[in-house]
């Protein structure tokens, strides 16, 4: 067989495989995010410096917490993005990547706060950075890191 043809078949198969598995991983991730978001819904999380304290309550203690995740897109999505760069415009496949990474990082932060018995998170901040892989002369993207951090606060009844 023509080596060019074999090459083409190989590329197509790997793209298809990446598409299938990547899509499956993303769907599973979104499902788990939605479930956990409902679980953590009752924890007030704000980007404000301070939260109004309910009447008869006062601040008890505070502590900083972080939650983060490193996530990467699949081969197929990267291919689509590269095609998109020819014409410009929205790259939807990367939008969903950033979206689920951010939601995951915030969820991890919230989970930690709930486990440690905090009543709210104030001053939530989100940062992202790109990790360059050492492969392909450091040009390939290994993934993005999203860091969410904030200060957990505990409250107590006045006089308690």
């Amino acid at each position, binding site marked *: 067989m023509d080596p060019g043809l074999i090459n083409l078949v190989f590329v197509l198969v790997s793209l298809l495989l990446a598409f299938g598995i990547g899509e499956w991983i993303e769907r599973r991730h979104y499902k788990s995010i939605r479930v956990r978001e409902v679980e953590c819904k009752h924890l007030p999380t704000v980007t404000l410096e301070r939260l109004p304290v309910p009447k008869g309550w006062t601040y008890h203690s505070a502590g900083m917490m972080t939650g983060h995740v*490193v996530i*990467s897109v699949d081969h197929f999505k990267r291919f689509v993005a590269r095609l998109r760069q020819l014409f410009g415009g929205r790259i939807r496949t990367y939008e969903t990547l950033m979206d689920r990474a951010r939601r995951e990082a915030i969820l991890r932060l919230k989970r930690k706060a709930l486990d440690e018995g905090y009543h709210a998170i104030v001053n939530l901040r989100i940062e992202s950075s790109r990790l360059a892989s050492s492969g392909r002369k450091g040009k390939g993207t290994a993934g993005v890191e999203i860091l969410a951090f904030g200060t957990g606060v505990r409250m107590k009844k006045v006089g308690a």
Partner: protein
Amino acid sequence: MILSNTDEVPGQKIEAFYGVVSGSTVRTKHIGRDIMASIKNIFGGELKGYTELLHDSREEALERMVQQAESLGANAVVNIRFSTSSVAQGAAELFAYGTAVTVEP
């Protein structure tokens, strides 16, 4: 040691300032993790090896910052910020800084 990324610790008053304290660490992943990550890169999803690595590094940067604050006699660090930069191929610096203070309820 109380840590906070707000201007002051909620519910407590700042009594004394000691200036900026910081901690940093430069880390790289080992080759095994790199190979695993490049396989994961084909299918996407979370790169757990990197998540753990960055978690450990950030904890270490914070730990160094806390040590510095302790040596100054502070009991809290407020307004903590993080920054990440890739200094070299496959290596990242994690930096944490904040203001060392003494707080009282």
